């Protein structure tokens, strides 16, 4: 039966990606009446089309404790959410391919260690023994047992079902035009009707800036058009998540044998045109780096490529908290690292909405830091 937009709900969440669904699940489990809205089908944007990397090594330092906590949720996802999200505890190698990279990697490893994420330094024969499939272009790498990955296509249906089981509702195909504060809460306006609620949570990824603007808050959410490529299924090529210290590469091999190649290389498109086109030259640069780091990839055929929209912030830190000037409108947008941290930020947002407090210190992510 098609879902129609209700006129009232206790909490309205705009965006049915990982942020919105996780927020909805934890709110529903806390007894709140929750409706999660999306401009299309749930899980169709960044959450559904990203590379699935769950890494701690590539996170900015303030995010390390949050990532470590979020990874616990991923590890326990089957019990927590009642399904197989395709989690693979692969461990991960962060690689350096130039002398400058090596210096940066060493400094970063030290900082990460201090922040609670210890890694193992590998180079030369030790690296070759641990990862014989790593190419000679890799001068050094740090290994973290925490780095891992999941299968986005598997995780989506699990979270959607978990939300429903908890009593939450999802209404797809609602192109929310505006989120506004009202005397007693907030209001969601759309072409298919208006929804009044006590609290509204903007969890709309790359669209969060647009929506915040309708509520009178100017948040600098930029757009990234991240490209991904996937190969034919193949026998074992690599058994760890791979990332590059300069952020120009991610690699993983799924249980079905396909290899996913990413790294944030930019395709083309805007929020207005929704093109999400692959950029030819950038794609090949991405593939070159991949083949340099794991030469065994060169013999595989690429079968599909695509691009997805992700939000970005000027300081590469999430937006989390009440919208400036609002009491009942919130925003949670991780904007890079969202897939890793989304389950946790959903729980924290549920805490904030229901109790006014969070179990982890989120002041650094206050959207007010961008208010003029």
């Amino acid at each position, binding site marked *: 039966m098609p879902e129609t937009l209700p006129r009232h709900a206790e909490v309205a969440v705009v965006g049915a990606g990982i942020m919105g669904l996780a927020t909805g699940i934890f709110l529903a489990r806390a007894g709140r009446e929750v409706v999660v809205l999306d401009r299309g089908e749930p899980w169709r944007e960044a959450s559904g089309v990203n590379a699935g990397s769950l890494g701690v090594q590539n996170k900015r330092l303030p995010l390390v404790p949050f990532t470590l906590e979020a990874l616990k949720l991923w590890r326990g996802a089957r019990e927590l959410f009642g399904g197989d999200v395709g989690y693979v505890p692969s461990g991960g190698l962060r690689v350096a391919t130039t002398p400058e990279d090596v210096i940066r990697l060493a400094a970063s490893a030290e900082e990460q260690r201090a922040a609670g994420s210890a890694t193992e330094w590998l180079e030369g024969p030790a690296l070759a*023994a641990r990862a*014989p499939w790593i190419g000679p272009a890799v001068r050094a790498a740090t290994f973290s047992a925490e780095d891992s990955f999941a299968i986005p296509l598997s995780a989506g249906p699990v979270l959607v079902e978990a939300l429903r089981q908890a009593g939450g509702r999802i209404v797809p195909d609602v192109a929310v035009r505006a989120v506004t504060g009202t005397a007693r809460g907030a209001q969601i306006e759309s072409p298919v009707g208006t929804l009044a609620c006590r609290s509204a949570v903007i969890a709309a990824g790359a669209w969060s800036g647009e929506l915040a603007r309708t509520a009178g808050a100017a948040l600098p959410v930029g757009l990234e058009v991240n490209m991904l490529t996937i190969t034919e*299924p193949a*026998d*074992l090529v*690599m058994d760890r998540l791979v990332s590059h210290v300069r952020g120009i590469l991610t690699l993983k091999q799924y249980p079905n*044998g396909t290899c996913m190649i990413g790294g944030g290389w930019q395709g083309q498109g805007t929020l207005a045109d929704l093109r999400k086109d692959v950029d030819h030259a950038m794609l090949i640069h991405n593939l070159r780096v991949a083949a340099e780091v794991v030469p*065994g990839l060169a013999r595989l055929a690429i079968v599909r490529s695509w691009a997805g929209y992700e939000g970005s912030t000027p300081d590469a830190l999430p937006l989390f908290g009440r919208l400036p000037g609002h009491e009942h409108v919130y925003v949670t947008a991780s904007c890079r690292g969202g897939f890793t941290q989304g389950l946790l930020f959903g729980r924290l947002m549920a805490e904030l909405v229901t109790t006014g407090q969070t179990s982890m210190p989120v002041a650094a992510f206050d959207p007010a830091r961008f208010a003029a």
Partner: protein
Amino acid sequence: MSPGVSPRRGGRAAGVARGEAFELRVDGGRVPAHAGETVAAALLAAGRRALRWTAGRGEPRGVYCAMGVCGECIMVVDGEPGVRTCVTLAAPGMTVQTQHGWTAPEADDATARAGGAA
């Protein structure tokens, strides 16, 4: 019974001037082939039709499109899995093996090529 003609299935059409004859090593046995024939054609002529077993349900697959676009006829050729036999010319000394899922039957070969232990 003429050489290279399976008693039950497959076979070669008469009246065709074929190139040099040789043999392919197929799963430890031998299959006749001629210059200009594809690996799949040589196997079909010998009545060999199940070429691989799928990764998921372990079902048999063989030639379907015969023009290189469906990916069903893939086998391990000279140690390399995923080779489309319908568009690969047979050559003297070539080794062909049934593909199970995405790997060669001797997993050691595959992991050795990938560089070592899992």
